[in-house]
């Protein structure tokens, strides 16, 4: 049967729809497929929004919450979008409960300059990841929420307690800082 599966042309979004419906009925194998399809990206999101020590713990919380809330997914948006929203809510709530905001890195302009200077690993992806790590905290959060998780500035403002104008400004600041890595 494996050779038949290999030729099936379902998109990842179509696979998500099928697996969500199966998982809602209690199919843990379908849920595991959803988990494996999405955990890496959610991991990336969590890594930049909270203390590294808490990331694996919060990942478990997120996916257990997904399992519990899956019946509320109506399919109006892509599953990935719904998942990102849920994950962001869990992450921000956890952060708020623990008061662990901005404990990862110093988050100053100097840090960003250091990130540029410390570039040691070849490859754009690694360079940009290192640079995102060292962005000033607010700029990093806005960048991750807007460009990675797909939030709008008004939503980001509400989530982070800043104005939408500040969100726009921070996003531009982050992108301008990160573009330096493209010049190497």
């Amino acid at each position, binding site marked *: *049967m494996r*050779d*038949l*599966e290999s*030729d*099936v*042309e*379902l998109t990842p979004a*179509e696979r998500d*729809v*099928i697996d969500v*419906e*199966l998982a*809602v*009925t*209690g*199919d*843990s*194998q*379908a*849920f*595991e497929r959803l*988990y*494996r399809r999405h*955990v*890496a*990206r*959610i*991991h*990336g*999101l969590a*890594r930049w929004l909270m203390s590294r020590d808490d990331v*694996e713990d919060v*990942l*478990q919380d997120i*996916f*257990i919450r997904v*399992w*519990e809330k899956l*019946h509320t997914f109506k*399919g109006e948006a892509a599953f990935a979008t719904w998942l990102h929203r849920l994950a962001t809510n869990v992450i921000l709530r956890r952060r708020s409960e623990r008061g662990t905001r901005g404990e990862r890195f110093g988050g100053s302009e100097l840090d960003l300059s250091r990130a540029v200077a410390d570039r040691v690993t070849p490859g*754009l*992806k690694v360079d*940009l990841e290192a640079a995102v790590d060292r962005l000033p905290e607010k700029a990093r959060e806005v*960048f*991750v929420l807007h*460009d*990675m998780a797909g939030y709008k500035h008004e939503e980001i403002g509400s989530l982070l307690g800043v104005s939408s104008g500040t969100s*726009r400004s921070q*996003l*531009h600041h982050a*992108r*301008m800082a*990160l*573009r330096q890595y*493209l*010049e190497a």
Partner: protein
Amino acid sequence: MSDQWTDRLSAYLDDELSATERAAFERHLVECEECHTTLNQLGSVRTWAEGYEGLPTSEAVWVGVREGIKGGSADAKVVSIQDARPRWRRLRIAVPLALAATMALVVVGVGSWWVGRATAPRREIVVSTMPARLLTTSSQAQSLLAAERYGAAIAQLEQVLLTNGGQLDTATVRILNRNLAVIDRAIRQAREALATDPGSAYLADHFTHMMQRKLTLLRRVASAGVAAS
């Protein structure tokens, strides 16, 4: 490049400028190579972020999740494929399945050749959704979902083929019909088997895969038909 324009680069990229601002900015872009270059760089950063694949995750996380969701749905029962079927029934299903796979590969090859020639945009078929929340077992849900989901898409594709099928040569149509008949027979057998054993994960998988196979085959041939028309 002045601050006046630099500050608008991200807003332009995100399509947040008014029509007037946008027009003015685009006039400036024509003249300012630096802004043009910076805009491209910001676009690359955004593209990287949107496509960011994330990080490898320790297997321990899944183990924790699996433990956490145990007992979360008491009514549901996932049946092991290995345990689900007596060996004789697996064989009965395997014969038409293998035959269908072989025949489908022939047609898929022909379809791929057509797709390769295609210049027209591919017609996308939207797969419908159906709630399966009232079903008792995941196998029942899977097979009914497959029937609903793929059935609608298959019907649409068959309509496309009826409309554009004249573009295919008769030999191809003959092969297509023969292979569809094989796949349809396998689907019918799986459906009948499921009627007597609705909790079987093996049969549900088989049924779903045959529906997927038919959908894939029809998509390719329909694309070829659309492209040729």
